[in-house]
């Protein structure tokens, strides 16, 4: 099992970690989740017989792990909101993560993209990260997400449009404030 782990680590670790990091926007959480990915992969590695590429399989597991994490967070948040009876005003509670070091040193535009990426839907976020940050092809992205190529294209188009709109509106707000 150790050999399998080391081989996977060498080939894919930094890519998987980066993907998880951009999905959850928190280094510590990404560190935990990447462990979860290996646990799932090592447990079912024997049943993977190369029916899809190893790389897309690993990304697919990583995405499921991230989505599971989001679900758990949403459940926790809902319980909290229900408890304090502020469900309807939930939008007032933005859970902003501190900007990580790697992003903080970048120019404003990159910071903005990073910020608004987190406002996209989970699906849109997955497509954008896989396509442009991880540089996967449309076909590979479709394999990771278990979607058709055309669904990837449509989601990518909508995600880019949403991101562009948010950025333009964000700029507008800034200008008005000035």
């Amino acid at each position, binding site marked *: 099992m150790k050999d399998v*782990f080391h081989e996977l680590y060498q080939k894919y670790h930094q890519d998987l970690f980066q993907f998880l990091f951009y999905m959850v926007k928190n280094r510590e959480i990404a560190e935990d989740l990447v462990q979860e990915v290996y646990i799932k992969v090592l447990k079912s590695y024997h049943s993977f017989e190369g*029916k899809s590429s190893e790389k897309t399989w690993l990304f697919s597991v990583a995405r499921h792990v991230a989505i599971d994490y989001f679900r758990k967070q949403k459940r926790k948040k809902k319980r909290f909101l229900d408890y304090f009876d502020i469900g309807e005003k939930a939008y007032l509670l933005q859970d902003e993560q501190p900007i990580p070091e790697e992003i903080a040193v970048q120019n404003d535009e990159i910071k903005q993209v990073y910020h608004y990426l987190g406002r996209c839907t989970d699906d849109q976020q997955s497509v954008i990260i896989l396509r*442009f*940050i991880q540089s996967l092809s449309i076909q590979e992205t479709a394999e990771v997400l*278990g979607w058709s190529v055309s669904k990837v294209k449509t989601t990518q188009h909508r995600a*880019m449009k949403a991101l562009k709109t948010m950025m333009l509106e964000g700029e507008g707000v800034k200008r008005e404030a000035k």
Partner: protein
Amino acid sequence: MKRNDRHQQQEKELQSLLEQMPKIQDHQSPDALYENIQAKLEEKDMHKESHRGKQKWYYLPVVASAAVVILVVIVSAAYLNNQNMYNQNMNQADDSEQGSVANENQYDMSIEQAPEEEMSDVESAESHNETFDSEGSKDEMMADQVLQSKALQSVPKNHIPFSFMIPDRNKQYSVPISFSVPQEQADLNEYYSNISQFVEAEEWGVDPSIFQGITFDFNLDEHTVSVDIPQGFLQKGGSTVERLLVNSLYHMMQPLNVETIFFTTDGNQGADFAHYGTLTELEVPSQIKNIYKLYQVSDEHPVWIIPIPANSDSSIEEAINAMYEGNENFSIRASIPENITIENIEESKDLLTITFSKSVNLTPTEPTVYMIDAILMTAKSFGYEEVHFRNANIDQIGPYNLEEIIQVPAAINVMPISYR
């Protein structure tokens, strides 16, 4: 036009920004990471063990109460029966004559019923379906032992069984879906060249698109098939489609005793595979070892028993152990439930003997029938022809008489054929 240009320009700028996002590195050392993972894996196993232990204790009072109820029912039924017998004996003087008439009636009935037994398994499966849909609770069904198996136990006379091997929605695994048709009606070229016409993709949770445009021309006497692939089809799908297609072809052709697959592209000899290169023919392996597990997209979709490829050098013990594991990421469930422990697996020639632990009590439920289906199919793929289950503690589950040695099925996931 200008507005469109501006949009495209903005999108390009955004794409370039995304591509410039900084590379994020993980600073954990691989060894430390592996230690953490190993610790978590062990923790999970321990948790499972302790959970199993707890479950047993939790169920103890329930099992005890159920046993008491069953005993009361049996004792009172026996008592009432005795009472009736006693009354009958008292009231009926010519008891023996009546008895022989009853026996004759029984004999007549068994003769009348005989042709029904010859009814094809598909038909009987359908009629079971009707029983299930129309009336009667699940419990009644169980009592009547009409629990449905997914397997075709034996091929009806003059029928030919065949299977499609259709990728799941994630294109990770393939689902065998089988049919059995009367030989004189069977047109394999028609069936295989129009797979999507016979498959309810949405309803069944499968994706037959990899067969789009592919045509088949069988020559069963020569044990060959000619497969024609449209130009550009293999390049478009990439290596995933190629692997799925070859795997499907192997699984579909092997049961039909096809030994060689010839490839053509739009009628011209050979097909350009991305991974295999140009192929004019492919030999079908005589044995494909598989581990059968359950696949179900959601509660609204049917459960399928699907083969997961095993290594060619793996043993039947390894395969059966792997049947305890699922993979929730791909809707794959274990085919042997955790609490069914197997004490021993013995092989002798064509017979595989599986001995359950003495504490195991098989119940007549759907998961148990599917477990038996899956074990039989796994055994079949490893070359066994018969399976004997020991210590099952129940004589009949669905169509399976566990007191007897069971033949491996002819096919799995049998559906009635319908052309759309």
